[in-house]
Every structure is written in structure tokens, then in C-alpha cells.
């Protein structure tokens, strides 16, 4: 079907360029490389002149250490490069910060923080923690310099916790709005829901590896995010792809030959062939699940290679950055952006 024959009214309005949005939420199953991808996406945006903050939620300061700096204390941004900063965000700390805004008397605050009711609130009502975390992140996205009145960040990249949790974070404003229909929390929640669901301002990126469990979970997440939560989607990032191909018939032949070698050579020869089998095994699994994923998830996607490294470090991050930048540049060029802004 040619582009001209499509009826414009039948299609959803084209999404504004991803780099114009102000909040990127990065979600995915535990262990798929969410923090690394969050940092890479942030680096890409920074390359395009955006002032970017990576907000790592409930993390261990890994975003900072990937970029080679010591993390700051919770809720405080640490500048890594001229255009790039990192911050660790945690719900209880965000709630304390929020209370400091509405209860500006220090003595009162101290009593509140040490009271059991407050402790209860933080420990046992995680919904509140999640709401506060999202609130804190949005506050950072909107924050302006008191002197110039300019925004401090053009873009905040939220590195969300593992799957189940990230959806709780993203769903909490909606849930809170339904419970608290009136009052400040109700109004704040409504504001967060509006901002999160506005495709001109927010994009949710999904990170996965091409294996059974992560793919199943990503498909489930995709449906929840796009349908139940109705949030605007960004990129699907498929991480850690094994890409080398070996002909298994050929490998079998070599393995048979290896058996005829003297003992010393044989050990090495078999190890060489076994590693090739291993790589081919992973490559074919990755291919199978990548295909399955792309059949079920309608998002533009980018692919990152598996990194073979003794220890993942700065050079590997740089290599992945180049791979990602190239793909995103091509993707963004192919996307028809009509240049209008919603809202």
C-alpha cells in the first residue's frame, strides 16, 4: 500500500520527534541492562545538545559508576559532562522532600519524620512512595533556574526498577487520582497523569534481551503500557544480541577431526569448537525470540550487540553508544515528523 492511499484520518497523529519530549521512562525485566541503556539513550540526547538528567530509581548508583563518577546523595544531581548529569531517586527521600515543601517548619518536620505514623506511611503504603518518586522526577523535568527562569534540564531519563515495579510506578498516578478525587493529591495526580500520557512530552522505552522470559515479559508490558495505562511509547531496545553465525554441520566435522589430534592439541581444538557451538546456540535463540518479539510489539526498535568483555567499562560503553547513535539517527530520519506540537 502506498503512503498516499492511506487515509490520514484513520491513522493516529504522528508522534512528535523523540528528542522533543521531556521525560523518557526506561522499563524492562531485571537484568536486561536497563541502566546501561538509560545511560546510552541519555548520551545520545546529550550529543544532540539536550541537557539531560538520568534519574536512577531505587538503584545502587550504577548509572553514576558506569559514567565513572561517585554517586551523589539521594535526590541530588551529579554533573558528569557539560550536558549530562545523574541522580539517584528513592521514594522515602522524595516523600521527605515533598513534606518539607508543604510543612516548612523544621521542628515540625523532625517530629513528623520520627513518628511511627510517618514510618508506617513510608514502609507500608508503597503506593505513596511511587507517587512521590514520579512526582520528584516530574519536578526535576519542570525545574527552572531561579535566576534565569530557564529550565534546568531539557530531558529527564528515568531508569525505572524491574518490570513489576516500573508498572506500579507508572500506574500509581492514575490509581491515586481515582482514590483521591479532590484535594491536592487528587489534583497533583491528575497533573501527573496528564503529563505522563501526553505524547508530546513523554515516551516509554522498553529494554529487553531476546530470550524467552524477557520477551514474554516485554510483550506483556507493551500491552499494559499501551492499552491499560495508555502511555506514549518510544523505542524498543533489544540488548545483548549474539550475532555470529557458524555452520553447525561444519562444526560437527571439525569436532570429529579434533578427536584424532594428540591430547594437548585436542583440548584446545575441542574448546574452540565448543565455544563456536555456544555462540551459534545463543545466536539462534536470539534470532528466534527477536522475531517473536517484533511480531508482537509494534514499536520502532534498535539492536545492541552482546559485549564480550572481562569487565564492562568505558570503552565498551563508548562502542555501544556509537552503535545506538547510528541506529537512532537512521530511525529518526525515516520517521515522518510533521513538526507540530500537541498540547
Amino acid at each position, binding site marked *: 500500500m502506498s503512503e498516499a492511499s492511506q487515509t490520514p484520518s484513520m491513522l493516529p497523529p504522528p508522534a512528535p520527534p523523540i528528542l522533543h519530549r521531556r521525560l523518557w521512562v526506561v522499563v524492562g525485566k531485571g537484568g536486561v541492562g536497563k541502566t546501561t541503556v538509560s545511560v546510552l539513550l541519555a548520551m545520545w540526547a546529550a550529543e544532540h545538545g539536550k541537557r539531560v538528567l538520568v534519574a536512577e530509581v531505587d538503584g545502587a548508583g550504577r548509572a553514576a559508576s558506569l559514567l565513572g563518577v561517585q554517586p551523589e546523595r539521594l535526590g541530588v544531581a551529579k554533573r558528569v559532562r557539560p550536558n549530562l548529569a545523574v541522580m539517584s531517586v528513592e521514594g522515602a527521600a522524595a516523600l521527605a522532600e515533598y513534606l518539607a515543601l508543604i510543612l516548612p517548619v523544621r521542628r515540625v518536620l523532625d517530629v513528623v519524620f520520627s513518628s511511627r*505514623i510517618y514510618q508506617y506511611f513510608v514502609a507500608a503504603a508503597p503506593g505513596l512512595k511511587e507517587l512521590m518518586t514520579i512526582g520528584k522526577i516530574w519536578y526535576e523535568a519542570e525545574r527552572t533556574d531561579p535566576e534565569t527562569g530557564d529550565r534546568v534540564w531539557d530531558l529527564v531519563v528515568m531508569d525505572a526498577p524491574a518490570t513489576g515495579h516500573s508498572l506500579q510506578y507508572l500506574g500509581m498516578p492514575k490509581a491515586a487520582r481515582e482514590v483521591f478525587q479532590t484535594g491536592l493529591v487528587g489534583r497533583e495526580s491528575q497533573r501527573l497523569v496528564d503529563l505522563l500520557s501526553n505524547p508530546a512530552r513523554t515516551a516509554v522505552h522498553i529494554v529487553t534481551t531476546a530470550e524467552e522470559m524477557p520477551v514474554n515479559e516485554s510483550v506483556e508490558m507493551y500491552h499494559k503500557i499501551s492499552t491499560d495505562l495508555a502511555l506514549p511509547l518510544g523505542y524498543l531496545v533489544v540488548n545483548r544480541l549474539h550475532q555470529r553465525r557458524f555452520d553447525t554441520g561444519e562444526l560437527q566435522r571439525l569436532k570429529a577431526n579434533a578427536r584424532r589430534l594428540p591430547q594437548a592439541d585436542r583440548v584446545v581444538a575441542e574448546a574452540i569448537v565448543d565455544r563456536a557451538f555456544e555462540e551459534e546456540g545463543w545466536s539462534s535463540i536470539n534470532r528466534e525470540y527477536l522475531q517473536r518479539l517484533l511480531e508482537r510489539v509494534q514499536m520502532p526498535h534498535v539492536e545492541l550487540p552482546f559485549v564480550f568483555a572481562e569487565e564492562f567499562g568505558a570503552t565498551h560503553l563508548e562502542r555501544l553508544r556509537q552503535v545506538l547513535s547510528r541506529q537512532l539517527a537512521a530511525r529518526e530520519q525515516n520517521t515522518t515528523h510533521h513538526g507540530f506540537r500537541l498540547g
Partner: protein
Amino acid sequence: MASALDDILAKHAIIVCAGSGGVGKTTTAAALALRAARSGRRTLVMTIDPAKRLADALGLESLADEPVDVPLPGGGTLAALMLDQKGAWDRLVERHAPNAEIRDKILRNRFYQHLSQSFAGSQEYMAIEQLRALHESGRYDLIVVDTPPTRHALDFLEAPQRLADFLDRSVIRWFVKPYFSASWATVRMFNRTVGFLFRRLEEATGVSALVEVSEFFTAMAGLFENFEPRVRQVYQLLRDPRTGFVLVVAPEEQVLQEAEFFISQIERLGVSLRAVIVNRMHREVLVRGRPPRRQALMTVLRKLRAAPELAEGLAANFDDYQALGRGDMLRVEAFQRLVPRQAALVMVPNLPGDIHSLDGLAALHEYLFSAAA
């Protein structure tokens, strides 16, 4: 000769597989249970969210509260039970509600409905309570438990206590008090600070919501009268000498850091760590104590009669995996020093693909139960 893990399977009534999410806990738990069943013990594996095809292999088509028998071609009694994570709180309320009216009141409460999914600790507590019931039934010689996929391995152990703290009646009563005692004035007089906080909360949230929150706590207040003793019993079971913990890890920096922390807390928690299983290990190949150089690889590949282009590819691939092996070995060696001496350390190589059959699980046994381990 029996391996260390065989010995552990033989001597315990409960084995808890702990570890941070995404390290292969579910598969490991299933493989351990299969081994015990084949050795003649009546075994149950309590599992959480296995990969679809592993669930099929274990005969788990859907969530069930009751164990289902897994037919074993080689003989032996193996049952599997998949824990329902989502309905944990509902079941907790159903079990503890004194009557249907209170039960419905809680289940219908909007505040409850929104928050019950994320209440800390409910899944973990329900898993342990179910474990206790099945253990006491005497139907099984051994129960292998897979723990929920938390970020931190300790969550599973600390959840019951957190839940008990949450249900502490004095805290709940505090929260209920303003509405319970008819007016805010009492509270304001009683404690100006708390009164102030409540006034602010009232302004912030809108009173209607607070009424609902309060109603919820009023209904909850009487619900868990005997909760504290139950939690104590749960901990007793976890600390029983016949309950052993198996920590499952992968050779990744973050995972090992988390595991280190878990090990450092073992004594405080009073549970026994019996084994550490390192999944997904890559190993570096050494010849006379050294990694073979590229030149040596090419010589061997010539002897294998590999075409030159293929030989280049094979050697490059081998070197890449050597680097992974070196990294994994270095990280695990450093970690190993922290593992208590009485706990066995078992390494399982990084096998391509997910395991989704009983035969696949049995293939893991070669690594888990080699006598040398």
C-alpha cells in the same frame, strides 16, 4: 560418591532457593527437586512464574493452590505448585476475616483495591504460610521453594517481619483514631504536631479519601489479632535445622554484591546457608596454566583443517569467550572468599537457551551433582 548437593537434599525437609531476580532460581529449584524425587524422596517444588515451557513440563497449566503430580518416567514422587502472586493479599484477608461482612468490606474498599497489589511482603508471607501448611501435612519428605523475583535476596526473609510491623495494632489504631473517636479535636488537643499533620493531610487529600482510608484501617484493625505469633512460627520454621538455604547467583558484579550482603546478614537472621550455586559461568581454558595464544590457536585450527576464513572467525570467537571466562572467574574467586566454609560452592556453565523439559533439567544434574564439586 555422593556430591555435596545430594547430601544437602538428603538431610533437609525444606530447601529455600534465594537470590536476586533473573539468576536462574526457578530452574535451579526445579532441577534440585527432580533430583531428590529420583533419589526416592517424596518431593514438592513450590515455584513462581516459571517460563511457559518449563511450566508445561512440570504439568502446571495454570495457577493452582494445590500441588499437581508430575509424572516421572523413571519413577519417584514429584509434585509442583505454582504460587499465585497476585491474589496473595485477597487470600490473606479471606483467611483472617472473622466474618463475610468484614471480608467484603475490605475487599470492596477502593483504597485496598489500589494498594493491595503493592503492599510490601504479602506474597512472601503467603508463600511461607503455604509452605508451613504443606510441611505440616506430612505429604512430602522434601519441599524445595523458589522465592519471588525480588531485587534483593533478603526481601523474602524480611517480608514477614515487615508485614507484622505494618499490621502492628498500635500503629493501625493510631491511624484509625481521629475518625474512631468522632472528632479531630481530640487528636488536635492530644498532640498539636500530629493534629497539624492531619489537618495538612486533610487539606492535601480531601476528606472523602481519608474517610475511606480510615474505614479500611478500622476494618483491618481486628483482622490480624494473632498475627505476631504466626509470624514467629514462620520464622521458627525458616530457622529449623532441617531447613537449608541455597543461594543462587550469576557471576555479575551487581548480583554478587547483593549476594555478599545476603551472606553478611545470614548470622543475624539465624538461617543456615548450605550451598551457593553460581549459574551461567564462563570458564577460561588454560594450557599449562596459561591461556593459549592466537598463534597456537591458528596452528591447532590448521591441524583441524578449518578453512582460513572460518579459522579466523573461530579464533576470534574463542578469544571473546576467554575474556568472559577470565572476568567470571576473577569475580567468583573474590566472592568465594566470603562464602562460609560449611556451605558448598557449585558452578554451572552458561548453557545456551532456556530449559523447558524434564530431560533438560536432568541434563543440569551433571553439573550440579558432580562429585568433584
